[in-house]
Each structure stands twice: as structure tokens, then as C-alpha cells.
């Protein structure tokens, strides 16, 4: 079963890179990614550009509305994701707990929906 790990963290803090904290985290991310590639859990994963680069698109009354900024203004922002293969939620949450940002931000674990047929 596949799960999407959505990584939420404070992007302003990350950008500030106080006393090289972000550099340490990048190293931790490389190690974490290597480990889930090796264990066979890794399906995909990316880091995202900050929410200042986000654009939202909606269609209302047949008209396309394009607005600047993220979908929701929150204290922690979606900064990246991993798509993983895990046998159940317990395995998925264990992997999520190893994502380096779990220490400062929040990892949302979402099962990937499978359509029958």
C-alpha cells in the first residue's frame, strides 16, 4: 500500500538557516532518502520551492481564477513530499517519524486511494 508523506515545516525558519541548521537538515535528508531507497520503501519524493512561488487556480462560474500564494496561510507550510510503499499505517508512521522535519515540523501521512477495476 502506498502512502504520501506530506512535509510541513516553517519555511521562514528554514530559509534563515540559523547556525547552519538547514545544512545539517539537508545532510539528514540525504541519509534518510538513501535509507528508504535501500529498504525498498521509496517510490518518489521531492522538495518544493517556497510558498511565495505558489499559484492557486479555481474555476468559478466557468471562469478561471488564478491567484498568487498558497491554498492556506498557515504557520507551517507544505515543503516537500515522499511517496512510500508500506505494509500498513504502523509502518508508514514509523517511516514518517524518521523524516528529518518531523523534529521541527509535522509530517501528514495520507494513504493513496486505489480505484477498483
Amino acid at each position: 500500500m502506498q502512502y504520501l508523506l506530506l512535509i510541513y515545516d516553517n519555511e521562514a525558519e528554514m530559509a534563515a538557516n540559523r547556525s547552519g541548521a538547514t545544512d545539517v537538515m539537508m545532510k539528514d535528508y540525504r541519509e534518510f532518502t538513501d535509507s528508504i531507497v535501500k529498504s525498498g520503501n521509496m517510490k518518489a519524493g521531492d522538495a518544493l520551492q517556497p510558498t511565495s512561488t505558489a499559484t492557486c487556480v479555481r474555476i468559478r462560474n466557468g471562469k478561471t481564477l488564478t491567484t498568487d500564494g498558497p491554498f492556506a496561510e498557515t504557520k507551517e507550510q507544505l515543503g516537500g513530499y515522499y511517496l512510500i510503499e508500506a505494509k500498513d499505517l504502523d509502518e508508514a508512521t514509523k517511516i514518517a517519524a524518521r523524516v528529518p522535519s518531523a523534529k521541527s515540523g509535522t509530517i501528514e501521512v495520507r494513504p493513496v486511494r486505489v480505484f477498483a477495476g
Partner: protein
Amino acid sequence: MTASAPGLSSGAVQHPSRDAVERVFKQERGRILATLIRILGDIDLGEEALAAALEAAVVQWPEEGTPANPRAWLIRAARNKAVDQMRRRALFEDKRAEMEADAALERDEPEIDEVAVRDDQLRLIFTCCHPALAVEAQVALTLRTLCGLETEEIARAFLVPAPTMAQRLVRAKAKIKQARIPYRVPDAEDLPERLDAVLAVVYLVFNEGYAASSGAALIRRELCAEAIRLGRLLVELLPGESEARALLALMLLTDARRDARVDAAGEMVLLEDQDRARWDREEIREGLALVEAALRAGPPGAYALQAAIAGVHARAARAEETDWREIAALYAVLRTANPSGVVALNHAAAVAMAEGPAAGLRLMDALGADGSLAGYHLLPAARADLLRRLGRLAEAAAAYREALALVGNETDRRFLERRLAQVSPARA
């Protein structure tokens, strides 16, 4: 199902009434459901299949006699119903359903023994109390699947509309399925944390039942009974876990006081004023033995300490004989192990009993100053009581009024009003 059902008793065949069949069913429901959920891998399928098996039993048992092993019969019947249904769905729908049906057939074991049934219940408890579910959902699922309470009964017990409770259960079951929350006893590494969650749910069910409240008295009593039953089950299934034993002890020692804590008029009676002859000796005896076993097992956890405190009360034949120094000491340890405002308040109250109201009042004033119990009516209520004992009646009245402004429960409110009247100057 047909007459080829397994386990028909030989010799003197009993032909039970419909009521008798339903009684057996109610007794076995929780155990059977746990096993069906494991075999079928789904709570809804298990519940539907079980309902179908009951229908079959109600028709067949009165005609053919009660099977030698009713539980095995019901499990077999339910499983066959479920597989039939999956196969029918497979015919019309998709290949996946057929594979599920085959898998369910393969998962079936010929012998369903007592040990397997208990393991299934343990697995199901951990699923129902999984931390990925909201606590209210954990409680509702546990009562529905392990205790066999109807959705309506659970709704009444928690004072929410039945459709809300039904929705809560539907959502929780959907999450278990869609997020694939496993049916598994956690491994040793995760067990302590996961067991804490299970014990918390059981204790919450107990407290919900024990909290004095008007109205649904019967269902509340049933909640306590179910919590104690779950507590026993955990002790039986996890004999090495002393906190499970301690929780059972705590519930038994608390439940023992049930009849004495409300008077004939339905008013709350304080521990010190209770008629101790009305305490349940059997529950006390069992509870005390369990506390001792839990305390012998090693450094006491939070439940063991609370059970030990309840045990000190239970041992005192009269309120005046209560060993308050022991209780204050136990609360002091509990305060370190489990720092919370409520525990600190109880500690202060015990110190007041052991060393006098002034000592207790000093601790309570410190608690009031740190604000951790802001909005909690028992802090001003306890302060008021100490002020009353110290003869500072005007201050006591002010504290009772403060408590009355915060209290939610009617029984507690009437109690505070009576006390306020006692400390207020008599009106002409």
C-alpha cells in the same frame, strides 16, 4: 447454512427458544466478532456476517438443537455468509472481490480454539484504540465491537445524538480500512505506549460510567461493568503488564463505593460521610489483592499509585481511621510520576487531612496562583472546604460562589449550594 453445520450435539439434543439463542449470541458476540474481523479483514463485513449468522441460528437451533460448540458454529456460519457475499459481489463487480473471497477462505482455520479467540480480541483492542483514531472514536469502537453495545446505547451514554455516534463509528471504520490500520498486537518496542492508549480508553469508559449524572443511570452502570470486563480481559491477555492489573484494581476499588456514594434522594455523598457497610466487600477484596500484585511487580506506575490510594481508603473501616499520611505520600509520588493540576489538588487535599487545613490551603493557594486549574470548579470547592474548617466563613462562602460559577454537573451543584448555605449567616 444447512443441516451440515458442524458440531451438532449428539445424544440429548436441546431445542432452545429464540430468546435462548439470542442470549447465547449476546454473550458470544464480542468474541465471535473479533475472530470474524481477523478472518475477513474488515469490521463492517464482520458485523454483517455476524447478523446473518444470528438469523440462521434463530431458525436452525430451535429446530435442530443447539450445536455442541455454539461459538464455532456461529463463526463458521458467519464466515460462510461473508464468503458467499464476496463471491456474489465478485460475479457482478470485479476480480478483486473474488480474490478477497478466496483469501478469506484460505485464512480460515479448521479449529477455532479458546486461545485463538482471545488473541483475536487482543488484536482488536489494539486496533480500536489505535492512536491514529480520535479518542472519542476509540471509545465508541471499543464499546461497539468488543463490548457489543448498540450504537444507540453508546450515544446515550455519551449524551450525543445517535446519528452523530453512528457517523463517528462509520468514519473510524473507514479510516481503519482506508489507511490500513493493522489488526496486530504491537511489538515489544511499541507495546508500552500502545498499551497506555488502551488503558486510557478503558479508564475513560469507566469514568464516564462512574461520573454521577442524572438520567441514563442504567447505561452508565453498564459502562462501568464493561470497563471492568475489558480490564479483566487485558489482565488475562497480558499477564505480565502490571499497569493493566493496577487499572483493574483501581476500577474495582472505585466501583465498590458505587452504592454508598449517592443517597436515597440521589444526592452525592462524600467519601468521609459514606456508609461503609454498603461498600462491595467482594470487589474490595479482589481489588486489594490486585494492587498488592501490581506494587510487587516493580516501580509503581500511575494506575498502581491511584489504586494504592483507593486501597488505603478501602482498608479504613471508618473514615476517621483513614491513613492520610500514607495517602499524602502516595499522591506526592504520583505528582512526580504524572504531574497534573488535578493530582496536585488531590495531594493538597490529602495533606490537609494529614497535617491540617492550613497546610493544605497553602498548597492550594500555590496551585491557584500558577493557573493550571483555571476554570476547574473543584479547586475553589476544595479551598472553600478548608476555609470552612478553619472557621473563615466569609472567605469560604466566596470560594463556594466561585465554584458554583464553574460547576457543570447538577449533583455537584446542589452539593455546593448546600455547603454555601451552611457557611452563610442564617437569614431571619
